[in-house]
């Protein structure tokens, strides 16, 4: 995959994810409708590749305005990933030399690997995660389960222990997937299923769409550096 193709794939996936996020805000307050309406228009331009570098720059400025408006991310990690992808793409489109463009895009790929590894590492060192109790707590009293019925999972400790270990092992072993094309594609497919499960069980739909947008960067980096 060439750098240009990977950048374009990321632009398209990010624009679609941003359109989904923006649509949800169009049902909100007037100030949000204005900000996200403008964001939706910019995303439509990006989707069709019209004046992409300028559109990306405008989206970064709008991203800063949104951060200011909500005094931080509106949707936690998904907003952070949105800004990270946007800033890396913008840098890659504006930096003058090819190798600087590559560094900017490789930073995104690196962060994607780190995000899975760190998420697993911080859990696996915790006794409550290793025993399965942490995942029981998530289902028992956290704000995330989308229905009261899902809280019944808290009474299935063996299932949650197995699920917790599956997630932790997948996350800490994720960097090993970089050593072949097949394992990376399998790992990204598994990761997407993991985000899909989080979206269904915990309502984290925005995470699913925006994480997908970061995957082309890793496919490109693997081909560029490792294979």
């Amino acid at each position, binding site marked *: 995959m060439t750098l240009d193709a990977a950048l374009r794939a990321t632009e398209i996936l990010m624009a679609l994810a941003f359109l989904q996020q923006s649509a949800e805000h169009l049902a909100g307050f007037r100030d949000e409708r204005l900000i996200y309406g403008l964001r939706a228009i910019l995303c439509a331009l990006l989707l069709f590749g019209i004046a992409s570098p300028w559109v990306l720059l405008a989206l970064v400025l709008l991203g800063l305005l949104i951060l200011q408006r*909500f005094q931080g991310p509106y949707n936690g990690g998904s907003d952070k990933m949105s800004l990270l992808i946007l800033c890396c793409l913008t840098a890659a489109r504006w930096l003058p030399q090819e190798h600087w463009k590559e560094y900017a895009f490789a930073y995104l790929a690196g962060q994607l690997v780190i995000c899975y590894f760190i998420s697993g590492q*911080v859990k696996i060192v915790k006794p409550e995660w290793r025993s399965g109790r942490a995942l029981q*707590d998530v289902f028992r009293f956290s*704000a995330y389960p989308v*229905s*009261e019925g899902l809280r019944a999972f808290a009474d299935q400790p063996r299932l949650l222990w197995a699920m917790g270990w599956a997630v932790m092992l997948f996350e800490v072993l994720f960097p090993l997937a970089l050593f072949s094309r097949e394992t990376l594609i399998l790992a990204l497919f598994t990761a997407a299923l993991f985000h899909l499960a989080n*979206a269904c069980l915990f309502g984290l739909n925005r995470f699913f769409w925006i994480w997908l947008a970061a995957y082309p960067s890793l496919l490109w980096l693997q081909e560029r550096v490792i294979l």
Partner: protein
Amino acid sequence: MLSLLKLLLPALMPSWRFFKSVDPSPRVEWAMLASAASAPQSWREFRPRPQQLTPLAMLRRMLWNPRWNESLFLVSCAERLTLTPTEHSEQEILRRITAELQRSLPPGACLPYLQFRLVFLDRAEDGGLIKAITYQSEPHLMAGLAAP
């Protein structure tokens, strides 16, 4: 400018420590009052989750989930309000409860004043759940709260 940089840096250099620990979890509860001097008669949870959600509804929410994402934003505001209280967090909670009540209750059913409180749930030593009220707002006049 410096405050904006402080908001941006965690996105450019994220910590990615998702679910490192399962901390006490906030619920927003509200009460309507006839006057600013009245005491709340009963507290109700803001936007309680449904008993069940069909697989089709879950799939639909993949594309359209504004209320749930707003509720997650209120969880963030509740955590911010408990750690470092700001007027912004309180106003966000008040205006979103007001908008929801005005949207969902029949005309004339709203009382003039609104008060909310934050209840944090945590696991007790014996495995049961414990609740702690960490914040209670003053009564606020609802008129104009939900304006942009």
